[in-house]
């Protein structure tokens, strides 16, 4: 009898635990995944930019991509720090220059078809939707 009761209690508690766990990952985790995905995208475009610049001996392109890379890195580091501090609204604002820089690098390096880059662009859009710059309810959940 006691064993039956115990089994019943376990099942009930497991159901309770499952219902309280979120169906989706927390907002901060999603935002962090987006930041890292954008960083991966920056690496891919930077490599392409470097290759094209070397092939064409195009100093302007290399310089432009190098500057965008630095802007994107600085912005993503700041966004990551904001996420670590649990300040999602600030992270949204800090990431804006990175997303712009990624777009600029893609434009300068030419059309690219790379799945990881598609993911980075999708995650950038998702990031901007999740934590728009200046959102009042940007607290970590």
């Amino acid at each position, binding site marked *: 009898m006691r064993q039956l009761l115990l089994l019943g209690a376990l099942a009930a508690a497991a159901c309770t635990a499952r219902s309280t766990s979120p169906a989706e990952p927390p907002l901060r985790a999603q935002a962090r995944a987006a930041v890292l995905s954008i960083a991966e995208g920056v*690496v891919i475009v930077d490599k392409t930019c470097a290759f094209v610049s070397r092939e064409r001996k195009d100093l302007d392109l290399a310089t432009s991509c190098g500057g965008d*890379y*630095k802007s994107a890195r600085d912005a993503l580091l700041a966004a990551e720090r904001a996420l670590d501090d649990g300040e999602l609204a600030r992270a949204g604002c800090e990431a804006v220059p990175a997303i712009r820089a990624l777009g600029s690098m893609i434009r300068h390096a030419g059309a690219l078809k790379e799945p990881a880059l598609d993911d980075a662009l999708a995650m950038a859009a998702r990031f901007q939707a999740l934590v728009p710059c200046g959102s009042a309810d940007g607290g970590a959940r």
Partner: protein
Amino acid sequence: MIPSIPSLDALTWIQLITTLIRAIPPLREAIGMIVDDHPDARTVRTILSERGESAEVADELRRE
């Protein structure tokens, strides 16, 4: 007097097990934080080196 474990009644067992199960998510979170602190964890700094390849190519082209 501290009761021995077999002497716990069914209700106490239920409370004990429920408490343990509720403690699992915070424990998992704590373990996750330890993993985040690991030096091999993926961060912006581990993905993006201080200078990109384009900047290196720009330096090369300037030298040529």
